[in-house]
């Protein structure tokens, strides 16, 4: 038993972090006309979309353990949910035996976007209103409800522009005109556990980034003749943020091993990780805004992006309350 990351895993994280900081820095989010989907072929070239796939489906070079590490770094850089949707689409395609489609997702030639149902819908016959998240380039759509996941192809939408709470992502309101269901997976399927775990990993990365941004700022910002980070009221907020991130980190790592090994408690651990990471993500994002003072409330300061993105991720597959209800009926052993 050893829950620490291996030196190779540390290297993967560091390389991903460095790459994203240079190529996709946070200030890119201020231009709403751009989309991270355009970067997916490049990220696919780095192997990021195929880490959790079998070799037959174009995968290799890793497992869910490495995949969650990369997803954490993607969360830190606030990469669009199209990355996660496309990774999941590849897993679903591979699981349904369509190795060709899986490798197209893994190669970034095809991408998927999340279609979040406003009201829960049937997976095999989706209907009603949806919120489409950053799907301008999407060839496929992923619907994720408490019942499982549905991968749509050839979807034609009747769309209306929406005013996104997270204004770094293009969000539209839409209903389906026509579509084909490529694949449906039930809520008990391992890919649902992997999906919850990867959402948790992204939220964890966001909690870390928000904490680091806050800590950097309170070391520099001076009031009353000293750095505000020397005041206990500020210190304690930062310490609580760190504790939340550490708790989420330990559980995301623990759960990723459980899911990768197909253990009996995989579903429980993955959902527990998601709840812990959601707590850390939301609370650390809010603390970061607060610790930046009035600067934190401006559009110019990057603090607000973490808070806004947390709301988008929280809605994938059911928000916090739904996760709590689901967790309580799962077996913890």
């Amino acid at each position, binding site marked *: 038993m050893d829950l620490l990351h291996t030196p190779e895993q540390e290297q993967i994280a560091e390389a991903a972090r460095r790459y994203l900081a240079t190529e996709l820095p946070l200030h890119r989010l201020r231009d709403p006309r751009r989309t991270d989907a355009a970067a997916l072929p490049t990220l696919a070239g780095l192997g990021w979309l195929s880490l959790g796939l079998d070799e037959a489906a174009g995968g290799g070079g890793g497992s869910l353990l490495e995949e969650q590490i990369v997803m954490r770094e993607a969360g830190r850089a606030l990469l669009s949910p199209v990355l996660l949707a496309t990774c999941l689409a590849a897993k679903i395609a591979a699981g349904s035996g369509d190795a060709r489609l899986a490798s197209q997702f893994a190669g970034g030639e095809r991408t998927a976007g999340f279609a979040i149902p406003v009201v829960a819908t049937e997976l095999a016959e989706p209907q009603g209103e949806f919120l489409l998240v950053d799907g301008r380039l999407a060839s496929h759509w992923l619907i994720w409800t408490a019942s499982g996941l549905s991968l749509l192809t050839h979807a034609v939408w009747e769309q209306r522009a929406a005013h996104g709470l997270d204004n770094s992502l293009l969000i539209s309101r839409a209903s389906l005109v026509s579509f084909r269901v490529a694949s449906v997976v039930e809520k008990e399927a391992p890919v649902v556990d992997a999906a919850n775990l990867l959402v948790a990993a992204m939220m964890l990365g966001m909690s870390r980034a928000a904490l680091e941004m806050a800590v950097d700022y309170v070391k520099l910002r001076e009031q009353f003749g000293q750095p505000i980070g*020397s005041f206990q009221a500020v210190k*304690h907020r930062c310490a609580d943020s760190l504790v939340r991130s550490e708790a989420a980190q330990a559980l995301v790592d*623990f759960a990723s091993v459980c899911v990768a090994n197909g253990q009996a408690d995989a579903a429980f651990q993955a959902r527990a990780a998601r709840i812990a990471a959601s707590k850390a993500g939301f609370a650390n994002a809010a603390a970061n805004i607060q610790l930046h003072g009035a600067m934190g409330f401006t559009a110019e300061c990057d603090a607000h992006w973490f808070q806004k993105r947390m709301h988008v991720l929280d809605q994938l597959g059911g928000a916090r309350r739904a996760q709590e209800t689901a967790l309580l009926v799962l077996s*913890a052993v």
Partner: protein
Amino acid sequence: MDLEFTPDELRFREEVRAWLADNVPKERRPSDGPEMFAFDRAWQRRQFEDGWAGIAWPKEYGGRGLSLTRQLIWHEEYARAEAPHVGLFFIGLNHAGPTLMARGSEEQKRRYLPLILQGDTSWCQGFSEPGAGSDLASLQTRARMDGDDLVVSGTKIWTSGAQYATYQELLVRTDPDAQKHRGITWVIGDMRLPGVEVRPIQTMEGREQFCQVFYDDVRIPLANVVGEINGGWSVAMATLGFERGTAALADQIELSRVVEELIELAGRTCAPDGRRMAIQDDAVVSNLANLRADVAALRAMSYVSISRAARSHVPGPEGTVIALFNTELRRRIFTSAIEILGPEALDRSGTNERWVELYLNSFSKTISAGTSEIRRNIIAQRVLGLPAA
């Protein structure tokens, strides 16, 4: 990252499980008085006789010399078997023992360590004073050198189990003129020496759990000094490092079981409206799910700290992170128990007693061994690198 146990470790787990099934005391641990000490001692002796004491302690000091992973397995099985709290042997096993192993002389190790494992001697802590709590380094208990002895005068307070202890990890001021962190010495006190007086203090639980200890020219041989004279601060920090490190492992693991019990309790306790069970209340569901997620996180953090400890034996400031999370979570868990019990909680007798006792006791956990506030300061300064005030 892996959670795999080796075949040897799995066999070890089976062995532990079988032994605990046959040997865990059937009767409840008394919560106070000499009966409590007699119980703790008998249980420690039982474990020692069959080779289960000091699993990760070196063989030459009476331990088994096994890995921390096996210690973890022991604690997991111990919690599963609902074995009694380690009780009055906690300080010896988790503080004094590890401190002596890290900083004691060879003679001290050979003399004191086996006695702890054998259930022969229990230890108490002698750090806090009426005027030195969070600001531990301002302690005033004086020790002057006289021949081969230190002569100690002053008082220590909040000393758990002092009335039953044989030895004490005692911090004394040996150089009153030095800067406050530099004039302190860590010495093995003997509670049986002339001039030591113990006065129990009643806690909010209604028990005599901790004491004030008075020292009136108590002569302690210089041979009992651990580390250097005036070098006690760093020894004390090592002690607190152990306390904030893996010492609470058993408690952390036990909490997972407690939350499962709480879910059962909510399934058979009426909600206040009398029309459904507590578990059917949305707010209770939300709360229990969060507690369940948090104890899962605590368990994962315990695994991380074991993994880390396997690489470096002296715990770093990260131990404070898990200590803060653990103690604050305890408060929330037992507060939830009281909420679920509803009016029943007002009567401590019968099956409610355990929950009420653990609830009241949980208030001590966010104060002892560093308040939550001090822990947050340590995390902010030593982990996050924020400037001192």
